[in-house]
Every structure is written in C-alpha cells, then in structure tokens.
C-alpha cells in the first residue's frame, strides 16, 4: 500500500505530542508526592497509567477516521485521546481535576469523555468493548457509514466482555474494529501466564471475523491493518480484530517498582523505542529531514506546554459541585 506522505508525517507529529504529554504528566505527577510517595498528594493525585511506547497503536488508526466515528479506550487512554484529537487543554485540565476539564473534574485520567470527537474510556478492564458495539449498532440503525473503534489491552482479552463483544459484533455485522494493545503485561502478569494461546488475533476466527497481527510496534503496520479493517467496516462488511505487539516503556502505573520485569527486558524495550525508530526511518527514507523532525517536535511540545499551562492555571471546581451532574 502506498501511504500518503502527509499521513506518515502526521503520525510522527502526533507521536511526538503524545510522548511529550506523557513525559510532562509523569514529571508533574511526582510534584509534592516525594520523598515518601503519597498517592493522594500533588497537583495530579490518584493512579496514573501512562502510554509511553504505545504511541504507534493510536497514531496508526487515526488517519482513517472521519468526523462522527467513535472510540472507546482503557485506563491507559491519553495516547488514543490525543491521536483522535480530543481537546488537549480540556483533557489536561481534567487530569488536573479542574473545572475547565472535559468532565469538570468529575472523572479524572481514567474517565475522559468527549462528545466531539466521540471518545470514552473506563477504569474497568474490558468495559469499552460492548459500548463500541453499541456505537456501531447506532451508526448502522441511523444509516451512517461511521465506525467504532475499541482499544483494549491484551489482559482484557480474557475478560468475558471481549468474547461477548466479538460475537455480538460478528452476529450483527457491526462496523466496529477491535484493537488489542499487546504490551505483554497486565500489571505484573505476563501474557504467557494469563492466556492459553500465543496470539489473540487467532481468537477472531472463533467469531467469524478477520484477525490480523501487527508485529513490532510499527505505526505503518498499524496504519495498513487499520485502514483495511476500517474500510471493511464502513462498507458494511463487518468487524475485525487487530492485535498490535507494543511496548509499555514505563511501569503499569506511576510509582510501580516494576520489579516483575528484568533489567534486560527493560533495556531491550528501550532499544526498540518507537520515538527513536520511527523518525530514524522517516529520515532514512527521505520523508523527513532531521530539521523537519525537530520542527514538528517543537510544535508538538509547544501545544502540550500550552495545554498543561491552561490546566495548571485553571480553577478547581467548588466542593459542592460534587452534587451536580448525577442526572440529566
């Protein structure tokens, strides 16, 4: 497949934005929490699951999306939300618990909800998959050619919701694409200790849909697989499952000692960092010059810094706002 240069470049720019966003959140997360780590303290309290290393999964899907398409993501949602174009300022503000956030501080980092573009995520493993089926069902009933994309970790593929959703999607021929972000670990449990087969993409055949494995955390591989799956879905040819081998470069959550992964494992991951490999490839193929890459990175950083500044300087909600928004 010939990939438009603009898409290749946009994928890099978005990866740079994601990585820098995660780096800034990580740094700010530790403010006022140390030396004795206190999860409740600092400008960003609570759990924090960052997606450094998983950028390719998100950016490879996004060039194929159209207005009106819907996404559900997981407890590790930032990369997907950023790639989809969820408002960065409001997203950052939500993570800071501010009134200007996507949910006025109600949801926080695991509960980011955007109307346009349509994005939702959840802290419960597997929870987004049936919801994506429902979005796809709505599109079908409304005669739209929109698609729903459900991102989930390989750990979620052992949850009942995964199997029920795949069956529903195939049975009802829904325009939905399931994207498994296989970073090999569900907190401390490796896939080999949780999953009876090696490749979750093989499970697609049990539900009568195509299953594609994208090895090697490659944005271009994701782009190709997602392009085909999304075309199928838009054409009314039903759902697909894509499994991407990706990397969780940091701990499961911030503060995770990550003792269950060896130093060699972590070193090997670092050597495969997509934020190094992908721009090198674009440069070696003459798609970008090093100067272009720097300029894109700089622009991405500026946008992130602005969003973070907006979040920091925004006001908190009033305490009694807790009582608002329970019902419409």
């Amino acid at each position, binding site marked *: 497949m010939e990939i438009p240069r603009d898409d290749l470049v946009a994928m890099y720019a978005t990866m740079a934005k994601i990585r820098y966003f995660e780096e800034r959140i990580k740094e700010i997360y530790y403010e006022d929490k140390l030396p*004795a*780590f*206190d*999860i*409740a*303290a600092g400008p960003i*309290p*609570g*759990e924090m699951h960052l997606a450094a290393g998983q950028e390719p999964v998100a950016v490879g899907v996004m060039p194929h999306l159209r207005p009106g398409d819907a996404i559900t993501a997981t407890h590790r949602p930032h990369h997907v939300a950023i790639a989809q174009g969820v408002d960065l300022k409001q997203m950052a503000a939500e993570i800071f*618990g*501010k009134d200007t*956030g996507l*949910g*006025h*501080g*109600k*949801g*926080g*980092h*695991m*509960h980011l909800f955007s109307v346009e573009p349509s994005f939702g995520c*959840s*802290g*419960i*493993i*597997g929870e987004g998959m049936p919801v994506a089926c429902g979005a796809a069902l709505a599109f079908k009933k409304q005669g739209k050619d929109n698609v729903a994309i459900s991102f989930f970790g390989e*750990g*979620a593929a*052992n*949850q*009942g*919701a995964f199997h029920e959703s795949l069956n529903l999607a195939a049975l009802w021929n829904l325009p939905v694409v399931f994207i498994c972000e296989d970073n090999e670990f*569900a*907190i*401390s*449990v490796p896939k080999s*200790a*949780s*999953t009876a087969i090696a490749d979750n993409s093989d499970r697609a055949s049990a539900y009568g849909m195509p299953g594609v494995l994208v090895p090697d955390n490659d944005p271009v591989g994701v782009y190709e697989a997602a392009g085909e799956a999304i075309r199928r879905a838009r054409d009314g040819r039903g759902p697909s499952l894509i499994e991407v081998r990706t990397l969780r470069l940091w701990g499961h959550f911030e*503060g995770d000692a990550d003792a*269950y992964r060896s130093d060699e494992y972590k070193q090997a991951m670092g050597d495969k960092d997509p934020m190094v490999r992908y721009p090198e490839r674009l440069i070696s193929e003459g798609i970008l010059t090093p100067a272009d890459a720097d300029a894109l990175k700089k622009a991405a950083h500026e946008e992130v810094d602005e969003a973070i500044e907006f979040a920091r300087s925004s006001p*908190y*909600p*009033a*305490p*009694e*706002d*807790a*009582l608002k928004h*329970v019902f419409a």
Partner: protein
Amino acid sequence: MTATMTERKLTMQKAIAEAIGQEMERDDTVFVMGEDVAVYGGIFGATEGLYDRFGGERVMDTPISETGFIGAAVGAAVHGMRPIAELMFVDFFGVCMDQIYNNMAKIHYFSGGNVKVPMVLTTAVGGGYSDAGQHSQTLWGTFAHLPGMKVVVPSSAYDAKGLMISAIRDDNPVVYMFHKGALGLGWMTNNPHATGPVPEEPYTVPIGKANVVREGTDITIATIGLSVHRALDAAETLAADGISAEILDLRSLVPLDRDAIVESVKKTHRLLVVDEDYRSFGMSGEVITTAIEGAFDYLDAPPGRIAEPDVPIPYSRPMEQFALPDVDKIVSGSRAMMSA
C-alpha cells in the same frame, strides 16, 4: 495480653498477609488466587511473601477473568478446598457479581444446608486519594444487602489478623474488605492508626461482634473501616469540648451486632452513624433503624448520619473531600446533635 505479645507492631497489611500465611501452613486446603497476588504480592500487599513461601500452586495469579476465577473458587470450596479469592478493588464486582451473589451466597441455602461454600473473597475498598468513581467505593452496603455472605471490614491490625483467620475457618462465604487507607501502605497517606500490636501466634476475632474502641457517655458514633480512625480523632477534639463520644466499631455488617448498637445507645442516648458508603439504602439506615427498634425510648435526639451523598465519587480533590466523611464532619455533626 502479656507484655511480650503486645510488643510487636504490624501494619494492617502485614497482619492480613501473616494471617493468610499461617492458615496456609496449618491447612493444606487453603489457597489463594487473584490478579497480581503471586509475584507482585497483591496490589495492596495482602499476599506479600506468600508466593515465595508456598509457590505458584497455592498462590495463583489469574487472568483478568473475575467471573471465571471467583466462580472457580466457589467450585473449589464446594469440593473440599478453602480458597481465598481476591477481587482487586471492590468496584470491579460488576464484572463478576453473578458468581458472588447468585452462586457463592445462595448454594448453601438452595441445598437446604447440605452444601457448604467455605471461601473468603478479599477486596480493597475506600477512597480519599483521588482514584475516582471506579476505584474508590466501599459498597459494603451492597454486599450486606444480599443474603448469604458474611461481610467483614477490619479497622485495626489486630482485628485484621483475627478476623482473617476466622474468615478462613468459617464454613460460610465471607467477604473480607480492607480499606486502602487503613492498611498502612507506604504509598498511601501516612495513617498512624494503621499500625498496632499483633500477636505472632494465630488467634481469632469472632465475626459478628462489634467493638467499643473508645468508651463514652454522651453520644455513640457507630462506624466501620477507616471511619473508625476518623471517629477516634474526632473524639479527641470532642473531648476537649467536654463531649464524651463512644466509638463503636461494627467490624462486620453481616452479621450486624445489633445488641451492641442498642446497648450503646441506651447508655449515651444519641447516635451518629458514619458511613463512607452511599447514604441511601445502606448501612447508616440499617444501624439507625436498629437503634430506633431497640432503644426508641432512650433517644434524646433524632439519630444522625454522615455518609456519601449519593453521588459517584468525584475525582477532583475538593469535590471528593466534600463527598467523603472526615474528622471535621464528625466533630460538627456530633456537636450539632449535642445541642439538638
């Protein structure tokens, strides 16, 4: 208790892990399963060190398949084992509740008492650290509402060990809830009440007996879990005002020690219930009803409650603090009742 027995202090987290380890040593049929309970030692340390001691056959990491492994615990319990299954956060019960309340809790009854389900379902509860609405709930009222399972919530390291040993030896399913803020975890806000004397040898604390953790004469503050600590701190402030608060740690909701509630209210004539769970249709209403049924003529003021105001737990700190019980709310609530 002898001096040597009281010398050793443990956090509640270590007391729980010690209790499980001692029971595993005593009884081959006891085993543990759950997500990250083996190599990681449990996200909240409830199984710390057990994988190294007992190996992967008895301390089993599971896939993220709660319906599967909790249902499997039920099956193993029916067939001669005493499983301990960990549901990492109670908030996750949604994906597996059928196995819990339609199966674990009902098999004994359906069998006319012939089949036993001796298992423990451990789970972490509670908020206050901005983990938002899917990782901060207590939900003990939800479990207590459904017949057939005991519901235990320790507030001290001593009780945690004794109640865990009782739970493992119980022939009934026991839901054992530990409040994250009461465990004494290094990564939670430091809580001095989380550490206390724990005897080294195994011992039991009976399930269904409330505990008067502070005696008083003016008002009964009935509560459970981390709010016991909040109430103890509030009682100090109230004492300086000349208000003598009696703190009743319920320790379990099922069975509920109704006699202890009635007895304390007969003595103090006032009742304030502090509940980190949702306000309506839950523990606070049940405890107040118990007092009205058993000590109506003794009450000098309408019973009061401090509870979560029936909203999902918000993420942002100011809103979360507004929603959850704290020392100030207990102090002002008690003062208001004294002047009522």
